């Protein structure tokens, strides 16, 4: 256990220089974007005078030179203070905390769904390779992969919300009704069905293809032939010998794709009006809310580091030859 903690700490320390470069780079990059948060605010208000604008710049601390602003930011950061959001008027950490729950729930569900469904379908396809189940599953995978998630989302809204009225068209929960306990869980689940499906399908297709290929590869290896020669039942060969080895590339991909999924969730969150991190990031760019954007990047980077750490641990679990200490 202690070794694990030491490893986690080492990973985090290794991530610090990367994070610092990302943050400073992003800060400077955003200075190149024309306009600042006061311009965005003026645009949102639909007009205002120069006097009001200059007072607002003073209020947001934008009247100082860029390097001074950067210095102030970094100084706050080492004190674990992410600063104040100009669009929300609240500390960045608080806003991200609220949004993180939604995104974490949403993304974990989508990832689990994509992973498990992709796994099952991949195994089925590999077992009957070139048979009709394989053709059907592979074609479906191609279709899922080709459908843009926002379009799928909108089409599902039209069908399931407008026409059939089975599912709510958006939001994270029923607004204005006091519900708690199991009813609340059910309510949130109902709101998440369509977003999860539209985000997960592309990833499902990827996992499916990956699982199928990697199953086929492992099935042709010598130790599988040995296992069969030993007289093991086909099911047992698949579970104990093939599946476990075929899972390794899948797990690698999960680690890699957490960040891709964060990007994809921006679109889906907008379509379903989910108050998640992706939409927050988009709004922050549009509104030039620098503190918020830097905060989101920081939190996302930490998330990716954590997921990859878990993936490393899983490797060791799946294949004892890879020791956690060796990485």
């Amino acid at each position, binding site marked *: 256990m202690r070794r694990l903690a030491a490893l986690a700490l080492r990973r985090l320390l290794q991530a610090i220089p990367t994070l610092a470069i990302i943050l400073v780079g992003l800060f400077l990059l955003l200075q190149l974007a024309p*306009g600042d948060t006061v311009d*965005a605010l003026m645009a949102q208000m639909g007009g205002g005078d120069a006097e009001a604008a200059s007072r607002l710049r003073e209020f947001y601390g934008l009247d100082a030179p860029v390097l001074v602003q950067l210095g102030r930011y970094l100084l706050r950061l080492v004190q674990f203070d992410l600063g104040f959001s100009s669009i929300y008027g609240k500390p960045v950490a608080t806003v991200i905390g609220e949004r993180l729950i939604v995104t974490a729930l949403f993304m974990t569900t989508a990832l689990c769904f994509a992973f498990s469904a992709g796994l099952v379908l991949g195994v089925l396809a590999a077992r009957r390779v070139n048979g009709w189940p394989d053709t059907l599953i592979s074609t479906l995978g191609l279709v899922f992969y080709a459908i843009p998630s926002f379009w799928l989302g909108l089409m599902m809204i039209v069908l399931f919300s407008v026409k059939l009225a089975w599912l709510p068209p958006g939001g994270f929960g029923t607004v204005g009704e006091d519900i708690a306990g199991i009813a609340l869980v059910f309510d949130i689940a109902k709101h998440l069905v369509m977003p999860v499906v539209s985000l997960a399908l592309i990833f499902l297709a990827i996992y499916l293809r990956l699982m199928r290929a990697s199953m086929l590869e492992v099935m042709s290896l010598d130790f599988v032939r040995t296992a069969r020669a030993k007289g093991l039942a086909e099911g047992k060969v698949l579970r104990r010998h093939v599946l476990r080895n075929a899972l390794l590339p899948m797990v690698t991909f999960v680690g890699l794709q957490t960040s891709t999924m964060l990007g994809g969730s921006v679109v889906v969150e907008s379509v379903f009006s989910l108050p998640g991190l992706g939409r927050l990031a988009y709004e922050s760019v549009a509104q030039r809310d620098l503190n918020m954007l830097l905060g989101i990047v920081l939190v996302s980077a930490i998330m990716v580091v954590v997921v990859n750490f878990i993936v490393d641990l899983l490797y060791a679990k799946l294949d004892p030859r890879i020791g956690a200490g060796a990485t």
Partner: protein
Amino acid sequence: MDLTRRQALLGASGTTLIGATPGFAQGQDQPRRGGTLTVQLTSEQRVLNPAIQASTGVYVMASKIVEPLVDLDANGEPVGLLATSWEGTPDGLTVTFRLRQGVTWHDGRPFTSRDVRFSAMECWKKILNYGTTLYQFLEEVGTPDDNTAVFRFSRPMPLGLLLRALPDLGHVIPAHVYEGTDIRANPANTAPIGTGPFKFAQYERGQFLIAERNPNYWRSGFPYLDRIVWRFISDRAAATAAIESGQVQFSPYSGLALSDISRLSRDPRFTVSTQGNEGNTAHTVMEMNLRRRELSDVRVRRALCHALDLNFFVQDFLYGYAKLGTGPIPSSSPAFYVPRPAPYAFDRARAERLLDEAGFRRPSRTGDRFAQPLKLLPAPWGEYTVNFATFIQQSLREIGVRVEIDRRDAPGFLTGVYRDHAFDLTTGWHQYRNDPAVSTTVWFRTGSPVGAPWTNQYGYNNPEMDRVIDAAATELDAERRKAIYQDFVRIAVEDVPLHCAVEHAFISVYSNRLRSSHNTPRWASSSWYDAWLAA
């Protein structure tokens, strides 16, 4: 116009439906108490305090909770809300407001003239956009007693101007909550305390705002609704789905895609109309940078205007929900508008002739008249201004003027046009705020500092224009003021530094269950005290 025909049809089909449903007719006449009205909004603003941020996006939520001194009645005339009567002195330097008695804030404290003084001096004059200009010469607000507020100006203030500006720039917030605090950072900005028919209940950023019925509202017996929920749905297709599935009953301020609006207008369950938005009229304009050599010639500017077939644009791009502009003062402003024909009728031959006269001949039959293409920055304010840019580009191509479009997001656009002046043409959305002096004349007056958004930043300079604008701003006689503004319109149209091409009000889409609505010129921004939902 097509719009009226569409509305007529719509009304007819709506009536048939109501007639066919037993028990419905009674429900239509008799206001029903209770129910939750859910409103869709495309975006939310940073604060819910209309005393420090003047914007329809703030009013549509906050004006149910916080009230102004004055609103506009069904005929567009000022009517007292927190003020009951007013009186100006002949020199225009003093305006006395009598305030409503027996009004309490949502926290139980009484509303007094101290609140008015605080709002005016600390918020409207110092922070509020457009307020800082309007109240520039407001010296003090005297409070001889709890129910009287005396506004003293150092330069004459036309009473009509003040009264027409107050519905937007005159919301009163409680002094006892804000006094001695940093007003911009006060938590009440996102949890407002007001005197309105609805009380603030809950605000979840990015999701919804809820306001509950105020049982102690000063109009006894009102409001009818138990609760209002505003939901933020930024994706326009998803917003349409929300209204079609019945989750939302009202989408204000042209919040849906125009193609969807057009489709819903044929659906008998909904009303689609610009009625009730006349007080929020805007122009879609083409602004021209006079620093560009070719555009400094008025003949060239006129030629570009003549090249635009605006009737086609209105019918095919805006689905008929607009009409041709006649000048910077829209036809929805009876106090200042004198009917006149739309200038610069579509006439391609004339446009070409004007350009020839100005010395910009076509080098060949298909060649470009200008050595460099015109750089057009489309204003990112939605379909109207973005589509207009494409329309301009294609129309000008026909007269031998090449246009390059440079699309940017809002902060990039504002910086490019108003600070860096890095444009030749731009489209714009010019909101008219019931009196030309509030935010219309700044488009033509010189002297705005560089970088001030929504002002004359295209190098237009006509001393005669400046003189007319200044004379009108301090003219106390309403009739003479109106006459001076006709000179303003005439010069603006002749010089045409910007072309007020199309005039339009916002479009509201709402369920037929929503009653007593859209009966004042700025209904979406009003208090909704008498709105109710049919069963």
